[in-house]
């Protein structure tokens, strides 16, 4: 039941964009999760959001995370960090898991893709979303002793946005925020002046961009010597290539960590990690792919934490040359896919089907009105006939040995055979596939057809831009479409969810017509734990252990 008096009272304190969000939820076009997510991007406080959601009758689902008892030691098997644990350069799962134990972000992406304030207490933007103002949490202490101030945030962001610094975050900041454009308003307020308006900016400085842990302005690049940060844990011991252990940070600003201690052991391969969990040497594994991880999926001693994600494998088809230059051929290829079988077979059901656009249904901005593409061999044959290749053709598919991708390639090969497309597979190491990762020197970017892995993102903006914009640096499909570019530019500037959905509908319609890339499925992240371990939040690829404990 809607409480209009309460709603009106809350609306009076909101701006035009925020009120648009309330309109959307009143009109029933947003569910509770989408409402909270968009509200969090706009910087609405959790109390305001909760009040509005309650007033319009959207009750929180009873899915409270079980919590363990305090005082445990949690033992974790993770992938060996690929190199030095350095917040500027880290790019791998093992390294990022290390960063987030002692380090914290301005805000953190939750399981429902909302943003939770952490070192920032709130944020807001100007009318066109080109300037964002973040209020910082007072009284936060660094492990090294100093107090968090605006200068620390500015130095951290400048370090990551500096092209001279070998920063892994540079690609996320590209075209959005440049070095020198984070400015101090006062000791606890920072303004970010963006290169162009960007409605989803808080995600760029959130845990989505995992290099953005906030360090003191005095940080000298020697992270492995001090493991500084503001987090619930502080380092106890670190041995490169072997492991690390952490203990509770008694000076933490928030609720103190439940575990007394966490112990991370590094493993070079998945199978030993699985065996270590089965053998009782660890309590959880950071991440389990379905292929290769079947042994744990049905193990009665293991609990699988399932985390919905937007991670996927993109199948690109060259739009500028070769057999896929005709969009009817690309559409025909898309129509050969039996997506339900892909999810059931490749992922054992741990995922959801895709609709050849980056808009996974978990994104609130996804247009709900777009019909799902289904397997239709007859229509595929008609399209090939119309394109003048009714008798089929041969084509090479180049891809990488990573997760379930080789098996996906074989399934695509089988699907395509039904319409006479003869796919020859070239499956190579990741190094060989990505090559120099620039056009002309990369099998990934130069191949006629290929499959490429993309990790989870809290907003679809990255997926919409680099792999699909005409000048996108990851545009392996060589897709060039001015209408698309304009729509994505507009989408990026838009911060209200209604406007985003309208644009998403246009973008999805255009992509379904052009089909430069197949998005066959989005897969879940799976975290296997020993039975009885609770308090691990189901956030894809971010292992936060401060609430972990055995029940």
């Amino acid at each position, binding site marked *: 039941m809607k409480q209009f008096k309460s709603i009106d009272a809350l609306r009076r304190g909101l701006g035009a964009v925020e009120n648009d969000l309330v309109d959307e939820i009143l009109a029933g076009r947003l569910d509770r999760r989408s409402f909270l997510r968009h509200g969090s991007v706009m910087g609405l406080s959790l109390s305001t959001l909760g009040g509005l959601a309650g007033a319009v009758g959207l009750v929180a689902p009873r899915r409270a995370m079980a919590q363990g008892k305090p005082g445990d030691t949690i033992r974790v098997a993770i992938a060996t960090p*690929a190199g030095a644990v350095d917040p500027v350069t880290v790019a791998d799962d093992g390294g990022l898991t290390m960063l987030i134990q002692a380090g914290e972000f301005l805000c953190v992406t939750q399981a429902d893709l909302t943003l939770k304030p952490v070192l920032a207490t709130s944020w807001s933007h100007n009318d066109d979303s080109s300037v964002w103002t973040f209020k910082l949490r007072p009284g936060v202490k660094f492990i090294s002793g100093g107090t968090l101030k605006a200068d620390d945030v500015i130095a951290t962001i400048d370090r990551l946005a500096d*092209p001279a*610094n*070998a920063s*892994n975050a540079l690609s996320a900041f*590209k075209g959005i925020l440049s070095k020198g454009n984070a400015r101090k308003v006062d000791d606890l307020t920072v303004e970010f002046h963006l290169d162009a308006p960007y409605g989803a900016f808080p995600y760029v400085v959130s845990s989505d961009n995992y290099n953005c842990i906030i360090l003191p302005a005095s940080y000298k690049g020697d992270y492995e010597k001090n493991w500084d940060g503001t987090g619930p844990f502080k380092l106890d011991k670190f041995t490169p290539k072997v492991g690390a252990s952490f203990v509770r940070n008694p000076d933490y600003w928030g609720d103190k960590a439940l575990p007394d201690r966490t112990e991370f052991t590094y493993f070079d391969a998945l*199978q*030993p990690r699985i065996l270590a969990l089965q053998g009782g*040497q660890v309590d959880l594994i950071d991440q389990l792919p379905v292929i290769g991880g079947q042994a744990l999926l049905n193990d009665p001693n293991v609990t699988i934490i399932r985390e919905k994600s937007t991670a996927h494998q993109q199948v690109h088809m060259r739009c500028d040359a070769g057999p896929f230059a005709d969009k009817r051929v690309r559409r025909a290829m898309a129509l050969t896919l039996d997506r339900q079988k892909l999810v059931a077979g490749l992922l054992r059901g741990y995922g959801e089907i895709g609709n050849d656009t980056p808009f996974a249904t978990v994104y609130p901005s996804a247009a709900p009105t777009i019909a799902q593409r289904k397997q239709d061999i007859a229509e595929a044959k008609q399209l090939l006939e119309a394109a003048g290749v009714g008798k089929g053709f041969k084509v090479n598919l180049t891809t990488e040995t990573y997760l379930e991708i080789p098996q996906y390639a074989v399934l695509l090969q089988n699907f395509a055979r039904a319409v006479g497309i003869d796919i020859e597979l070239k499956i190579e190491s990741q190094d060989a596939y990505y090559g*120099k990762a620039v056009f002309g020197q990369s099998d990934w970017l130069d191949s006629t057809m290929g499959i490429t892995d993309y990790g989870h993102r809290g907003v679809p903006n990255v997926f919409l831009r680099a792999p699909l914009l005409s000048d996108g640096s990851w545009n392996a499909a060589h897709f060039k479409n001015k209408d698309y570019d304009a729509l994505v530019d507009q989408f990026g500037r838009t911060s209200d969810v209604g406007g985003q959905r309208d644009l998403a509908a246009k973008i999805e319609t255009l992509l379904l017509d052009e089909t430069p890339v197949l998005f066959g499925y989005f897969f879940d992240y799976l975290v296997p734990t020993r039975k009885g371990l609770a308090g691990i939040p189901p956030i894809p690829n971010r292992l936060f252990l401060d609430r972990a404990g055995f029940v």
Partner: protein
Amino acid sequence: MLGLLLRRLPYAAVTLFILSLLVFAGGQLLPGDVGRAVLGPLADPRAVAALNHQLGADRPALVQYGEWIGRFVRGDMSQSFAFRAPVAPFVGAALWNSLKLGGVAFTLVVPLGILGGIVAALNRGRLLDRAIVLVGLSATVVPEFVSGIVLILVFGIGLKLFPISATPPPGAGAAVQLYYLVLPAIPLVFIVFGYIARMARAGTVEALDSDYARTAVLKGLPRRDVVMRHVLRNALLPTITVVASQTGYLVGGLVVIETLFHYQGIGSLIYTAARGHDFPMLEAGIMTVGVIYVLSTLAADMLLAALNPRIRAGGRA
């Protein structure tokens, strides 16, 4: 003996130099670069270029090699590209681990293999001979990852008799360390046993058929004395060469076992260095294994010379 050693040492040095060149050349053929390996395929090219520049990996290949070999001959293994820390402690720790695991496997397999070969030869044509040969051959062809996983599942997870990791807790004593190394050593025993046993059997059979053995039997020596004093001394010469050739494998070639049993040995160090384009770590790791291999071959040559006067005399006898 000293003369033989002095004659061999220059060859060993040349071998190691050629090895360093081959590794370096091979490293150049690997696709990608260290900046891309550290920052990932989707990193901004400016960041990749900046990291390659910071590490000196964007300099001409020969300049990099020249600097590396210059430091190496002075005992400096340089800095790791990936870990941005000196290579020597990584290699030292990994080598020590590998020597421990290799040592346990060596201690188990060499006596077992030689004994098996001799017993088979002494029972030539009988059921025991065939059983030893067949078991040895079968064990050799079972890949380490198969036997390793079976052992882990049965003895580690099922019966819980052994830990499934080869890495003992910090500060563990020698007995505990040995306990942790037994299970991973067994697949290595499987692989090397058949090889050593076959060589020992062939050598023993040949020695048993020789004129001097027949003479020893005919002059009335007990069978035990014939075997111990006349047959074994000659039978084991080719086996020693085989054992020496396996030493390099037992120290540096255990990537699969080290990965499976979660053990930080030099094999996995080399493997991850190659994957990460960490050229200084790769060169140092392979050169270390190369030195072990050369030293074990030299030791085998010395042992052969001690057992065979013709070798001591440079083939002039």
